[in-house]
């Protein structure tokens, strides 16, 4: 059985694999996959935080918002851009919380 530290290390390892492979593939991939991978990485990062004892309502909220809309990348560029804009505005709104 893994220790909590080993579990955490594994989750970060998986995230690093995702980000590094994304970086490599994005050289030639669809342009909009770049912002998609960034927000998805942010979501995956926030998902790990409770395991580190970090309890953040605003970060969990932004993760939900990311996950609720991230696949608009498959719809059209303007929908996806509006969604990204709304994420930034949601972050601004929660800055002082």
């Amino acid at each position, binding site marked *: 059985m893994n220790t909590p530290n080993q579990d955490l290390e594994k989750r970060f390892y998986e995230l690093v694999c*995702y980000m590094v*492979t*994304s970086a490599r*593939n994005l050289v030639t*991939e669809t342009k909009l*996959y770049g912002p998609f991978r960034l927000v998805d990485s942010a979501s995956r990062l926030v998902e790990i935080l409770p395991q580190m004892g970090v309890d953040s309502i605003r970060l969990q909220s932004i993760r939900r918002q990311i996950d609720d809309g991230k*696949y608009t990348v*498959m719809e059209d560029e303007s929908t996806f851009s509006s969604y990204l804009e709304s994420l930034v505005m949601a972050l601004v709104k929660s800055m002082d919380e």
Partner: protein
Amino acid sequence: MELSLAIQNRRSVRAFRAEPIALDQLKALILEAAIWAPSGGNAQTWRFGLITRPDLIGKIKMISPGLLSQPAAVIVICQDMEEARRKGSDLAVNALSWMDTAMAAQNLMLAAHAAGIGTCAIASFHAKAVQKILDLPERIVPQLLVSLGYPSQSPKPPSRRTEVLWLNEYAESGS
């Protein structure tokens, strides 16, 4: 399921239930659907890796940014590039093998959909890393991954462009 319904209702599924798919059913998707796709020059240089072990799926997922959620299985559609070159020269290596892979994948995904199984075709992966993880010979080149599982969500249909057709004489905006 009627073919036109299967074609129009199939979706790229990126959220799966934690439920295994019977091995016979997975094999049938390959042996009764995928391999019956057209193949340029009838070369059939495709190879299908059926991956069901969670540890292997986990490793493939780590270097496949397009592979989302936790699928029950992943089919790695490969081509034997040495055989492709021998049978069809550069055209097979650079074009026909890719077309064959795509057509086999579509057969597989439609058959899966008809059986209630969700799929997603994934090109966002690192082919050499997949070769290494699966211990594939260098000539066996992964071209496409297909994730499979029972859907936990029904994606809404994306819009489709209809101004893509012309009749006889080319026109930019077709009809």
